């Protein structure tokens, strides 16, 4: 990975929200490097801060949210202190976003063609016939049949999967370098989900995109991600190559997330579920944020925040379990099974 070019680099980012006179610490000291052309997935429960984190890359934080400290460096420029005017140059053109629910992210009063055309006109300045043919070309790219006719239709004439294709079409219309997909398939059926993921993979190839997926479902990202970052309580607790995180996870939270997948459940037995709730981020978190919900937590987990421990050059996790002095804690059964699945991969390391 080291040889690859970095496109986005986040350093010690802290994001806070003002809420009824109190401060909520949504992102706590997060650093992340995104390499050009890779596909990165950020996984976490709702409320873990994964959406807030990526919204900060586009200057889309809610009005009461602000970057307290840290840098967001995109191709050499620090964007953390950008004004709205500066953001307009980035948004859509350099970094674009696909939102979760295709039912609400399109304007019901405008035709599909007009909505795609709007983006193209704003960023590429095309007009008239040139604009029309550009729109048709874009629709073709995202796999919509009869693009000339479909461009004149309204969102309600499209099914959920087709609408998501349109949203993707708008996002890639201006050839952004980074495409952020915020739960792109959560509102869709499994069969459609698989098709949309395939489309995103194809577009990434075709347009040389760097993609960042945000999802709560680890099952989905095995298919699309080169690297996976697991987020919990506003912090990245584990990050590594897809194979590393699936076949050899190190953080107890990653274990818990993987174990609770119904795909791994056995009939007649209880599915693994994570006890308790995530910590309240209105208060400063002490120690390892996951300690309170971790039945095997060590004493130090409640006292001191663990640093990152390197597992391999590309894989690191924030857990005291990786400290050489830590007692040996065996991962739960499901994780050991996953390890067997990745047997070949782990052996080849």
């Amino acid at each position, binding site marked *: 990975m080291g040889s690859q070019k970095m496109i986005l680099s986040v350093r010690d980012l802290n994001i806070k929200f003002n809420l009824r006179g109190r401060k909520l610490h949504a992102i706590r000291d997060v650093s992340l490097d995104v390499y050009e052309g890779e596909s990165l997935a950020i996984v976490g429960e*709702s409320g873990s801060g994964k959406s807030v984190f990526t919204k900060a890359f586009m200057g889309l934080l809610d009005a009461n949210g602000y970057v307290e400290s840290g840098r967001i460096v995109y191709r050499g420029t620090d964007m953390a202190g950008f004004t709205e005017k500066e953001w307009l140059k980035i948004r859509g053109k350099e970094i674009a976003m696909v939102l979760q629910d295709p039912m609400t992210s399109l304007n019901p009063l405008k035709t599909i063609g007009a909505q795609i055309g709007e983006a193209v006109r704003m960023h590429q300045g095309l007009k008239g016939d040139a604009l029309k043919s550009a729109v048709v070309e874009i629709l073709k790219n995202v796999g919509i049949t009869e693009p000339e006719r479909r461009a004149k239709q309204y969102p309600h004439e499209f099914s959920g999967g087709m609408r998501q294709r349109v949203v993707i079409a708008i996002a890639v219309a201006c050839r952004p370098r980074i495409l952020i997909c915020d739960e792109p398939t959560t509102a869709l059926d499994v069969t459609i989900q698989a098709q949309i993921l395939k489309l995103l993979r194809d577009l990434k190839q075709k347009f040389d995109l760097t993609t960042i997926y945000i999802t709560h479902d680890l099952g*989905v990202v095995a298919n699309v991600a080169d690297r996976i970052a697991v987020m919990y309580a506003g912090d990245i607790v584990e990050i590594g190559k897809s194979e590393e995180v699936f*076949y050899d996870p190190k953080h107890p939270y990653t274990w818990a997330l993987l174990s609770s997948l*119904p795909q791994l459940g056995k009939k007649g037995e209880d599915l*693994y*579920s994570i006890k308790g*709730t995530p910590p309240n981020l209105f208060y400063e978190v002490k120690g390892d944020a996951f300690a309170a919900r971790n039945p095997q937590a060590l004493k130090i987990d409640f006292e001191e925040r663990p640093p990152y421990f390197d597992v391999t050059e590309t894989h690191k996790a924030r857990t005291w379990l990786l400290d050489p002095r830590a007692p040996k804690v065996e991962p739960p059964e499901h994780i050991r099974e996953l390890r067997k699945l990745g047997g070949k991969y782990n052996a080849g390391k």
Partner: protein
Amino acid sequence: MQGNKKDVVLSLRNLEVTFGEKRKKFVAVRNVSFDICRGETFGLVGESGSGKTTIGRAIVRIHPTSAGDILFNGQRINGVISKELDHEVTQKIQMIFQDPMASLNERAKVDYIVSEGLYNLKKKLSEAERKKRVEKALLDVGLLPEFASRFPHEFSGGQRQRIGIARALIMEPEFIVADEPISALDVSIRAQVLNLLSDLQKKRGLTYLFIAHDLSVMRFIADRIAVIHKGRIVELAETEKLFANPLHPYTRALLSAIPMPDPIAEQKKVLLVYDPSCHDYSVDKPRWLEIEPDHFVYGNEKEFEEYRRILSSSTGAGGV
């Protein structure tokens, strides 16, 4: 499968549900028949628009049916029925809805939401008795009795779904239609709700009709699975048989779409897309056939031959 096979709780006979009038008639469910036995979890899987929710809603008498029968404990419950039976059915068949954010009355307190069904009982309950029942229902789903005095917006998605389940349980139902109860929830919360549902089933001998679009959940919770496409059931089998030998091309497409937490396997995976035009039913008419014990599939003679070949070549293991 648990219990005696003949103990059928709910039985659908050639059910048809249509929407709209003559010229614009749309058949949402066509010729659907299946039996659900006491104590089992019967899964109904299909994509959006396949009519799976319509079947669930027809069972709880929300949608009128246009043909066929729904039998509950041997009694017909669709169409015009007596007031007494209607009361009995509303009490004994309950529903859990998909989206806990939309299915709770935002202006009512949890106390009222959970016990609303009780007000409709013939035998009026005393206030103290009602309170006691609410308390018990909340405890049963793992919520605190104090929550009764709060409003829905004070709860997280998982907790709200528990309130929805408590609301169904308080009526002491025999049969619960669970319409995608977990698809709007986070993965970690999903596990909790699924465990709760199977726990309640064990304790109370409940029977579930579990509706979902995702086969991965089904394998974990359902005893038997029916796959529905465009209002027609195309395959029905015991869960493990279906996963070992999916026959209908649509079932195979659904199975191939399940995302697995295994990056190497995922990269090699071939995604199957179901194209209904692969069936040639112009001469050879399709029918519903029990191709192996407890495994039904919809097709014509030519396809059955192909399916039999798949069955005989597999050793029972393998599959997807």
